[in-house]
């Protein structure tokens, strides 16, 4: 699958940082406003998908792209489990909120909740991207 014409390429290139930044905002503010790791991760993945469709897959190496996305998704999952085990290592319960919760409404508040959502955001971004890339490669790659 080669890329599209110059108009979609330019629009995708200009729009990409805004969409990715908006997704990151949704992930980071998951404990303050509606949103969180799941929808934010999908928004970030859609930004990458927009670039992949506009520019084509010819610049991507199939195996390395898929392996990297797999590694990122596994890293997100491992981060979630390690954060959950933090409570056990301190003699408390699994998934217990061990960090201080801070002041309500501030960015650094809520204990481990924002960090758990960061892990979920990484996992969802890489997972959705992995699904979409493997479908794109299966139906139109390697040309």
């Amino acid at each position, binding site marked *: 699958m080669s890329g599209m014409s110059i108009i979609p390429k330019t629009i995708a290139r200009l729009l990409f940082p805004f969409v990715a930044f908006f997704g990151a905002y949704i992930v980071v503010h*998951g*404990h*303050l*406003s*509606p*949103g*969180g790791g799941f929808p934010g991760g999908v928004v970030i993945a859609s930004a990458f998908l927009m670039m992949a469709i506009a520019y084509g897959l010819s610049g991507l190496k*199939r195996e390395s792209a*898929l392996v990297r996305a*797999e590694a990122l*998704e596994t890293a997100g*999952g491992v981060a*979630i*489990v390690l954060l*959950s085990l933090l409570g056990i290592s301190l003699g408390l319960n*699994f*998934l217990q*909120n061990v960090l201080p*919760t*801070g002041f*309500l*409404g501030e960015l650094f*508040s*809520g*204990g*481990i*909740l924002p960090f*758990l*959502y960061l892990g*979920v955001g990484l*996992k*969802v971004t890489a*997972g959705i991207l*992995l*699904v979409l890339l*493997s*479908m794109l*490669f*299966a*139906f139109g*790659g*390697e040309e």
Partner: protein
Amino acid sequence: MNERMAGLMLATIVGVLLIVAVYVSLPEFGSFPLRNIGGNRENAIGQRILENAPRETGSGNVVTGVVWGYRGYDTLGEATILFTAVVGVVALFRAFGRRRA
């Protein structure tokens, strides 16, 4: 043609019935069904979580407080389901792409 008209009418009737049923049975905006616990309406679990979640979990978003504070195991399982789904899709489409290539 006749069958098509009958199907269209059936779909319209069922759709209107569904809309009316949902409209009639929806609670008022902003309210949610309270469940009595021990005969005490103030102890309804939804009301308790709404009032206590910001203080107990430190999260301004009550949904996040429930998802990662009160029901962390459930969300961990949700992430595992996503992982399983991704593994399944990738296994399927990898084999498909390799056979085509």
